[in-house]
């Protein structure tokens, strides 16, 4: 690879065409002259400029940054003000020179904690006044220059079209024809502020001679610190929704990696998102599809644990794979103990609601209000509810109020009004403060965050936010996320928030979904019966050659993390069920992908002779009691006794979940299912629909039909 990098130096750049060169030089001179005219207006400052330049040159090697930091900071503080002024002035198109100067003068008396005795001529005040004199008019004239430049650039594009090489085609395509006109306006818009920014960054250099300081300061001034990574910025997504990227799990060889470990996941956001996408006539983005969330969306009637002492029960079914004759599916279903309502602990719920302007859409705030009304009806009189909103600034709408005061709560819900921009950081602080105020010892303390998109954490970073949520989680306050709307939904962040807060992330697009999430599952999700639930499956190399975990890509854990109680994992609420499906390749099957290891031969007979010879795999579940810190272990061996000879003989719920898993994998582009058609998924789902009292499964079949219609060539 280092050789590769060396090759970068091998390429000699082509010379610029003389015309372009001449044009650029002319533009430079024009800009220079434009700046000159403006400086003529403030002739008095020219002499000090030169002096300070000499001073700076002499002093810069001697002065260390410590001495200059003060003035640099002071300048930095005032530069945004200058930027704002400049922007305002350019926008208004007012006569610049005089006004700018006036305002700049008013700026002067601002307190300047600067060590200036060393540099009388380069005093920050003088600099500032000058900076503003120069930047404002400079930028203004830049605009006209920029317009000329835009025309010139278009000509340049036309000229160079004749001689493009392969690598230009893409770029030329981008700029040709349609957006020529747009481009012109855009350039004049963008160039002017950019020039300003440079001028400003440079003014920093004026008082802080070492140029490295400019380098340091410039990125902050030129580009507003983007809350997203560069990678995300460069990618041109069609909408601004962001999803954590994870490739589908690969097929792993049992010989080399016999153990698979992951955290349970009871989130359902992905299914609702896929549904919405398909309903709108669009195939969902592959990254938005998380197969395990789709599978876990549906209520299944897995065998239940019989007592509280056994928080959940695991049922394993091994069936042939419908989409691959050579493999089998190992279906692991876990059902949490259903807390009888009488035993449900007192709840202290804090709703943190995004009321930013973007929530003002029928499928956002109004939907949220209806959903909360449903939930309030469902809560017990002694439970408390509080509401915090966040937009321009965070505000407490409702102090912790007992549900017996239902009217007051409903009134508070009705009073929610959208408006302002998002400032999540204060909101979350306020929400946690309220949750602590009404803390119920031994009860359920949960913050429920409802938002339509970016959870803008303000000055703190995403990491700080995660840390805060983790800290509060350890203090007994959990956090769930309810996503609303579409177009700006930051799925990845929401996932992380919920996962760190021991909560679920649900995506709510219809009132029915709100009912399912908030009301029906209010009895489960907010009442965890076990936390940090991890699953580990060890496959027996004597029986299984390879395996592939379907979904759970974002939930993978390291093998050694299974026994490490410090590693966080998902929760299971009362009545929750979690389903995980492995596609396993039996030994000797024609579908085996990995060849046998030549040198593993010697070890094998020992394995076959072991007392666990008849086992296919060994399932281990580790969990903590909701208030416990030490984990407990449940183990189940998987043998041929768990197997059914054909999929048709498997329980209906198993078949349905397999259909969902197949659909999810098709949507996320898993190649193994290329030959398995949507029709086959529909047949499988229809045959296993069962009673379907809420119509969830029929809806699923409809979605598959929609996808089939949309997918077209992708069968």
């Amino acid at each position, binding site marked *: 690879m280092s050789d590769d990098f060396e090759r970068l130096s*091998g390429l000699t750049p082509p010379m610029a065409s003389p015309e372009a060169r001449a044009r650029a030089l002319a533009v*430079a001179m024009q800009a220079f002259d*434009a700046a000159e005219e403006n*400086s003529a207006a403030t002739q008095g400052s020219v002499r000090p400029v030169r002096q300070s330049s000499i001073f700076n040159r002499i002093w810069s090697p001697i002065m260390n940054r410590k001495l200059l930091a003060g003035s640099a900071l002071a300048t930095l503080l005032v530069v945004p003000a200058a930027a704002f002024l400049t922007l305002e002035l350019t926008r208004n198109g007012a006569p610049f020179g005089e006004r700018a100067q006036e305002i700049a003068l008013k700026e002067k008396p601002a307190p300047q904690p600067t060590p200036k005795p060393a540099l009388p001529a380069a005093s920050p005040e003088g600099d500032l006044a000058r900076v503003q004199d120069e930047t404002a008019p400079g930028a203004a004239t830049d605009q006209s220059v920029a317009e000329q430049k835009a025309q010139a650039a278009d000509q340049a594009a036309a000229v160079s079209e004749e001689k493009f090489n392969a690598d230009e085609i893409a770029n030329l395509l981008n700029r040709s024809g349609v957006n020529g006109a747009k481009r012109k306006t855009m350039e004049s818009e963008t160039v002017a502020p950019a020039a300003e920014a440079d001028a400003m960054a440079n003014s920093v250099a004026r008082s802080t001679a070492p140029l490295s300081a400019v380098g340091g300061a410039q990125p902050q001034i*030129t580009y507003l610190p983007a809350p997203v990574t560069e990678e995300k910025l460069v990618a041109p997504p069609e909408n601004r929704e962001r999803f954590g990227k994870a490739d589908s799990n690969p097929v792993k060889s049992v010989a080399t990696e016999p153990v698979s470990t992951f955290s349970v996941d009871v989130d359902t956001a992905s299914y609702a998102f896929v549904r919405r996408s398909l309903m709108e006539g669009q195939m969902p983005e592959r990254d938005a599809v998380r197969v395990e969330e789709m599978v876990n969306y549906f209520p299944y009637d897995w065998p239940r644990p019989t007592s509280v002492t056994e928080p959940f029960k695991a049922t394993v079914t091994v069936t042939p794979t419908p989409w691959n004759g050579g493999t089998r599916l190992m279906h692991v279903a876990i059902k949490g103990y259903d807390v009888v309502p009488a035993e449900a602990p007192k709840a202290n719920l804090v709703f943190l609601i995004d009321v930013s302007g973007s929530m003002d859409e029928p499928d956002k705030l109004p939907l949220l209000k209806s959903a909360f009304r449903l939930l309030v009806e469902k809560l017990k009189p002694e439970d408390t509810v509080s509401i915090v909103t966040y937009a321009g600034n965070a505000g407490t709408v409702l102090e912790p109020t007992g549900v017996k005061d239902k009217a007051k709560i409903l009134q508070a819900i009705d009073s929610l009004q959208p408006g302002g921009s998002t400032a999540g950081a204060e909101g979350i602080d306020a929400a946690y403060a309220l949750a602590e105020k009404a803390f119920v010892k031994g009860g359920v303390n949960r913050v429920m965050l409802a938002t339509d998109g970016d959870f803008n954490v303000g000055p703190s970073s995403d990491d700080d936010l995660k840390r805060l949520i983790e800290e509060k989680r350890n203090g007994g306050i959990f956090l769930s996320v309810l996503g609303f709307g579409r177009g700006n939904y930051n799925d990845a962040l929401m996932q992380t928030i919920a996962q760190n807060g021991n909560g679920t992330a649900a995506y709510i697009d219809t009132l029915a979904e709100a009912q399912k999430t908030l009301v029906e599952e209010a009895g489960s999700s907010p009442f965890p019966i076990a936390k940090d639930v991890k699953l580990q499956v060890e496959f027996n190399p004597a029986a299984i050659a390879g395996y592939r975990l379907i979904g759970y890509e974002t939930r993978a854990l390291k093998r050694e993390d299974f026994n490490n109680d410090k590693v966080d994992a998902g929760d299971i609420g009362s009545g929750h069920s979690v389903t995980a499906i492995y596609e396993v390749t039996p030994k000797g099957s024609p579908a085996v992908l990995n060849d046998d290891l030549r040198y593993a031969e010697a070890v094998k007979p020992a394995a076959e002779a072991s007392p666990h010879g008849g086992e296919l795999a060994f399932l281990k579940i580790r969990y903590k009691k909701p208030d416990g810190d030490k984990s407990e272990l449940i183990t189940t061996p998987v043998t041929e006794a768990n197997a059914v000879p054909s999929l048709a003989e498997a329980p209906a719920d198993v078949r349905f979940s397999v259909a969902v898993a197949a659909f999810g994998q098709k949507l996320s582009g898993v190649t193994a299912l290329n030959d398995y058609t949507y029709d086959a998924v529909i047949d499988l789902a229809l045959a296993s629909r069962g009673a379907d009292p809420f119509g969830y499964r029929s809806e699923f079949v409809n979605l598959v039909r929609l996808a089939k219609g949309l997918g077209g060539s992708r069968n």
Partner: protein
Amino acid sequence: MRAGTDLDAELVEKAVSGDRQAFGALVERHYDFVHAVAWRWSGNVSDAEDIAQDVCLRLGAAIRGFRGTSRFRTWLYTLTLNAARDHKRRQVRDHRQMQAYASEQAVAAPHQDPDAERREVLWVAVRELPEKQCDAVLLVYAEGLSHAAAADVLGCSEATISWHVHEARKRLKTLLGKEAV
């Protein structure tokens, strides 16, 4: 270039104090450098010309405020890199608008020379890197700067540059590894 450093210093100083001729000479002297850097970052001539012109514009507007004569070149790097980034963002935006109108994808003509093609792939891959990594790699390898000088241009520490280069290497390995298959 080394021989002209003194001349540069003189020209910069004069230009800063408002000498039109000196500024003209200065831009004349450095245009090719700016253009070459712009070309390395953008990957094609017409974009490089646009960026270079942009840099000239910014130079003209900002030169009077420039301090630190000896580091004119570092400043040019910074200006050019910023202009290249702005240009790229603008293009991404244009590209998105374009996509609304045309769904055709550009198909690059295959190269005759396999070595040139390999290099082409590498260049494309490097430009696909996250901004900071791309900048670091290009400054160090294409521009031949030391890690310290690159750190100066990008306004970060030397260790950060080394780290970016290291990360870029890791990333490219997977990127190119995949493409080779």
